C-alpha cells in the first residue's frame, strides 16, 4: 500500500462528502461539511509532503489548520445568533 493510493482514496472521500456541501438543508450542515473537507485536505497536504520529501508542506499544513479552526469558529458564531432572542442578556 503506497502513499499515492492513500492520497487518491482520501481525495475520493472528500469528493463524497462534497455532496453534503451542495445539498445541505441548513447553513450549519454546509459548515460541518466544510470542516470535514478541510481536515481531509490537511491530511492530503501532509501525505504530499511525505511523498515529495518536502518538510515545508508540514508547516503549511499547520498554518492551514489554524486558519481552518478560526474560520469555522467565526462562521458558527455568525450563523448561530438568529435563534437568540432580542433582549440583551447579561
Amino acid at each position, binding site marked *: 500500500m503506497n502513499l499515492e493510493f492513500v492520497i487518491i482514496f482520501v481525495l475520493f472521500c472528500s469528493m463524497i462528502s462534497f455532496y453534503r456541501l451542495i445539498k445541505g438543508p441548513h447553513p*450549519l450542515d454546509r459548515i460541518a461539511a466544510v470542516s470535514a473537507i478541510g481536515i481531509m485536505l490537511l491530511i492530503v497536504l501532509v501525505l504530499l509532503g511525505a511523498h515529495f520529501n518536502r518538510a515545508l508542506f508540514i508547516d503549511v499544513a499547520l498554518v492551514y489548520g489554524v486558519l481552518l479552526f478560526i474560520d469555522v469558529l467565526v462562521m458558527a458564531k455568525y450563523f448561530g445568533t438568529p435563534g437568540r432572542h432580542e433582549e440583551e442578556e447579561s
Partner: protein
Amino acid sequence: MIVDWIIRFFLFSGMVFFLTTAIALIRFPDFYSRMHAASKCLIGGGISILIALIIQEGPSPLSFRLLLLIVFLLITNPVVGHALSRASYHYGHVIKMTRDDLHERVFDND
C-alpha cells in the same frame, strides 16, 4: 518487516475511518448525528494516518512537527464540534430529549 506491517495497518485504519466519515455525512438523517460522525471518525482517521507517518519517519524534527499537528487536531476539533452544535441549538434545532437543561436558559428567558 514488522514495522512495515504496523505502518500499513495504521494507513488502512485511517482510510476506513475517512470512508466512514464520508458515508455518514451523506446518509445520516439529523444534524446532530452528522456532527457526531464528523467530529469523532474524522479525527480518528487523521490521527491514524499521522501516527503511520511518524512511525515511518522515526525520531526527527519532522516527526516532532507531526506530533504537534496531532496535539493541535486533538485540541481544536472538539471545540469546533461544540461550537457548531451550540449554534445549531441556538438556531432552533431542538430534538426530543428526556432531560434538557439548556432549554430554559435559551428559550424561556422571559
